[in-house]
Structure formats: structure tokens, C-alpha cells
């Protein structure tokens, strides 16, 4: 099971990194999503892999799984979900305003004047 979980995380991370390095915003957003999935899985298993063990104290049970990583993952999922929503909206707005969905700043972006109106 360790091998399966570890290689799953590895493959998802690799796919995520590949997509993050793409030039346009849509693949980058997908890549960030994949990356956060991999990270969530990774955080989850930092409490070690255990099957069928309870996280809270129960009578007559001696083997427990670590509950803290589960709480951490919950926080991480909520945050990454919110962040994905933010970047989708911002990418869309940037695309609509500049009619260009490249992530890198094109030459001249840095030379453009201030846009306060």
C-alpha cells in the first residue's frame, strides 16, 4: 500500500508541476489544482497509513490512527478550494481585460503607464 500511495502522490505532483509550467492560465490553474490534491494526500499520510483504526479514544481499542493530519487536511482543502476560486476569477478577468491568457508578462507590460482612472 505504501508504494501505491507514494507513487500516486508522485505522479499527481509531476503532472501538476508540468501543467503549472505551461504558458496559458487554464493549464496553470489545472496544475495548481492537481498540486493541491497531491499535497492533501501527502498531508493525510503524514500520520502514517492505517486501515480501520479509529482516530478518537474508544473502549477496548489499542491501535489508533493520528487524528491531527486529518484536521490539517481539512483546513488545507478549504483554503486551496477558496484559492482556486480566486485564481479562476482573476485569470478570467485578466483574459477579458487584456484579451490574452498568457501567464508571463508580455514585453511592454512593464512599460505601460498607470491605469488608474
Amino acid at each position, binding site marked *: 500500500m505504501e508504494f501505491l500511495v507514494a507513487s500516486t502522490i508522485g505522479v499527481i505532483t509531476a503532472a501538476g508541476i508540468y501543467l*503549472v509550467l505551461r504558458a496559458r*492560465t487554464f493549464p*496553470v490553474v489545472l496544475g*495548481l489544482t492537481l*498540486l*493541491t490534491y497531491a*499535497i492533501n494526500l*501527502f*498531508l493525510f499520510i*503524514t*500520520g*502514517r497509513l492505517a486501515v480501520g483504526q479509529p482516530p478518537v479514544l474508544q473502549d477496548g481499542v489499542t491501535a489508533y490512527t493520528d487524528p*491531527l*493530519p486529518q484536521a*490539517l487536511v481539512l*483546513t*488545507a482543502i478549504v*483554503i*486551496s478550494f*477558496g*484559492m482556486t476560486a*480566486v*485564481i479562476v476569477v*482573476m*485569470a478570467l*478577468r*485578466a483574459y477579458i*481585460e*487584456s484579451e*490574452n491568457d498568457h*501567464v*508571463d*508578462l508580455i514585453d511592454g*507590460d*512593464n*512599460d*505601460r*503607464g*498607470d*491605469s*488608474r*482612472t
Partner: protein
Amino acid sequence: MNHWIILPILLPAMVAPLIALTVRHDIVLCRVFSVASTVLLLVLGGVLMGTTAVEPVQTYNLGNWLAPFGIVLVLDRLSALLLLLTAVLGLAVVLYAINGWDRAGRHFHPLFQLQLMGINGAFLTGDLFNLFVFFEVLLIASYGLMVHAGGPARMRAGVQYVAINLVGSSVFLVAVGLIYSVTGTLNMAHLAVEVGRVSAADRALLETGGLLLLLVFAVKAALVPLHFWLPGTYANAPAPVAALFAIMTKVGAYAIIRVFTLIFGAGAAASAGLAGPWLLPLALVTLVGGMAGVLASRRLGQMVGFAVIGSMGTLLVSVALFTPQAISAALYYLVHSTLAAGALFLIVDLVRERRPDLGDRLTTAPQFAQCGFISALFLLGSMAMTGLPPLSGFVGKLLVLDGARESAHAAWIWGGILGASLLAIIGFARAGTTLFWKSASVEGTLQPMGQPAPALPFVSVGTLLGGMVLLTVFAGPIMLYLDSVAQQLFTPQQYIDTVMTPNTVQPAGAH
């Protein structure tokens, strides 16, 4: 247990929704609430700093849960210093923003308060995962502030900024996970104890986690080669936001100082001194690269952005030595460079709004309104940033150089800092000559767009420049305080004992 400790987080957290929900239609009330909250934060910062003189380390157990199990806020001299610095910068920024920037888009003041909340939280927390959460709070607010007032260039720079920070957050989580998996705790004081006990077999995992943390903090602190987001972000962000972001890079520097003196300090056995060998060469490259960027910039805002990178290099060179003397020099330079960068970003905006079609591009054009006065402000700001006497930049660099005297790499450090300072002086002198001096020889005057408001922006810039004058005049007493801060960082036992000793509030009936 000191209940005042949570107020720097609670106050902006309450004021932000209050502004957003009840008074958002009335810009005057928004401004009143926002300025009042920032002034209160300044007072709180002063009071809290005063209490650390009596009781150097104070804790606050959230929800009254005991230390290694619950989240704990810790106030020590370093966090008190940074709370005060944040409030000073915040006040100058909000005074500048109420002059019109806050009406250029929606919800400036709630986002600004949330940003202050995140920054204060990051300085106060004593828990590694909670540090991640506060990083996210300050980042979410900064995403909103970064694209305040909109526009295509700003939106695109914003997307880049968000994407880079999301990757950074992921790496932070990996680092936290790795450290938790071998130590079984996330409380920083408890980690400081546990890290020394990690078995040799798990040490590789622990050190990978520690270095990944360094990587994340280096992204925040704009260390080369992770700096590339900074010039685009700062040059495109609204001016008050760019000025506020001057403290954001310092959050990265703070986290490096905290984690690598407390958790990976002398008590970490084989893992002690994990960061130094990586940090020093990278900081030197940052220093020289940033100041070379100053020379190459074609816009004033971009140039100040590169100067910020260079100053982070100077700061982190000093941090990388990890000696009490070097850290106290680094802290002095940290306070100075925050004020200097904040002031310069505001001055850039003063120039920008007076040159309608040219903005802050480094081209010679006719004189603009109040050219002489603004050029004097620019001169003061650049003297501080480049480290010319008599302002605090000179004192700061002198202290950093003095702190590096004992180091084995002293020649590199002295050469790097002095060489980079020369590059910065040439860059700033060239920009000042092009913008202000040569304009006298061009016929006509430029009409500013709109009505540049009279006094308030100058009050705001004056506050920051005045802060640097105070920093210079009172360098002696301030250094005494900073020495005590550094001393406290290098004797972490008191911090660990205070956090780990149960000191919860007893319910009233228990007595």
C-alpha cells in the same frame, strides 16, 4: 496569560467586516473606522512592546487549550518590534490611501484591515501550521489589494502573483507535513525540544522539511532565484499597496529568523545551523542582482522594486551569519528598509500622478507641479535606500558590515555590500537626474491629471522619512533594544519554558 496579545489580530478582524457590511456606502465612515483601527494598532504595538520590557515572553492559549495541544500566540521582543513597525507603516499607507486611492476600486479598507490582521497574526503565532494559516490570510487580502482599481496590466501581474504564491503555499504544506511526520508536533517551542531528539534515520526527512520551509520563506522574502515575481507585482500594484507590501517581504525574513533560531537553533543537535550555508551565497547573489536590476530599470516603480530585492539581500546576508551581533544589525536594517521602501513607493506615486502620459517612465520631460519639493523627498528616500550618510541606511549598512567582521566569508560580504551600494547609488542618481534635474532644461510644464490633493500625501511620506530620522538619531538606544531582542533569540530556553509551562486561566469556580 496576557489577554492583550490577541487584540492586534482581533481588532482588524472585527473592523474589516464592520466596514464591509455596515458602512461600505459611506467613504468617510470607512476612512474613519480604518484610520481609527490603525491608530489603535499603533498604540497597542507600543503598549505590548512596553510590557515585553517587564515580562520578555508572554503567551496566550487560544480557547484555553494547553500548549503543545492547542494553538498558542507568543509575544516576545521580536514580535513586539514587528507589530509596532507594521502599525507605523500601516498608518502612513492608510493616510496616503484616503487621499483618493481607496475610491479607485471597491473594498480597499476591509482588505487593508484583513491584511494587517494576517501580518500581525504571522508575527504572533507560536504554531507552525497556524503560521501557514496566517500566511494565507495575509495573501488572500494581498490578492485583493494587488488588483485594486483593476486594469489589464495589473490583472495579469496579479494572476502571476497568485499563481506563484499558491505554489509556495503547497510547498509550505509539504514542509509542515514532513516536520510533523518525524516530530509529532507543530508547536514551535515543542518542536525546538523535539527536533534534537529525532533519530538519525529520520533526520533526512526533518532537514528536507526544514529546507523546504526556507524555500517558502525565501519566496516571500524575494531571494534570488525566487525573486522574479516581485518587480512585476510591486510596479503594477497600486502605490499604497506596494508601500504596504514593503512589510510583506519582511514577513519572510521574520519567519526565517524565527524558525532557524528557535527550531533549528543550537538545540537542534545535528540539524543545528541548517539554513546558514544555503542562505549566505543566495543572499549575496540577491544583493548584487537586485542592485544590478536598479541600473537596468526603465520605470521608477520597477527600480524601487529591484532596490527592495537588493535590500532584502543585505538583510538576509546579515541574518545568514546567525550570530547575535549580526541578527541585531539585520533587525535594524529590517526596520530601516521597510520605512525606506514604503516612502519610496509613495514618492513614485507622487511623480506618477503628476506626469499624465509618461507615468513613472524614466524619460526626460518638462517640469511637473511641485517638482522641486518632490525631488527633495526623492533625494532623501534614495539616500536612505542606497545607504548614504546621514540617514539610517548608512547606520544600518555600517552595523551589517561590522557584524560580518568575524565571519569566515567577510571579504565576500564586504565586497558584495559595498559593490552593490555603488550600483544602487549610480542607479538612483541616474533616475533622479533624468526625472528631476534635466527637466529644468525642457520648455513648458506638465499638467497633472485630476487635482493632486494638497497636504495628506506629504504628511504620509513625511511620517516614513521622519521615522528614519528618528531611527538615525536614536540609533544608540534602539540598538540596545535590538541587542536584547537578538540575545533573546539566541537563548530560546525562556521562550520554550514559558510556552510549555501550563498557565491557563482557571475557571472562576475552581478557586
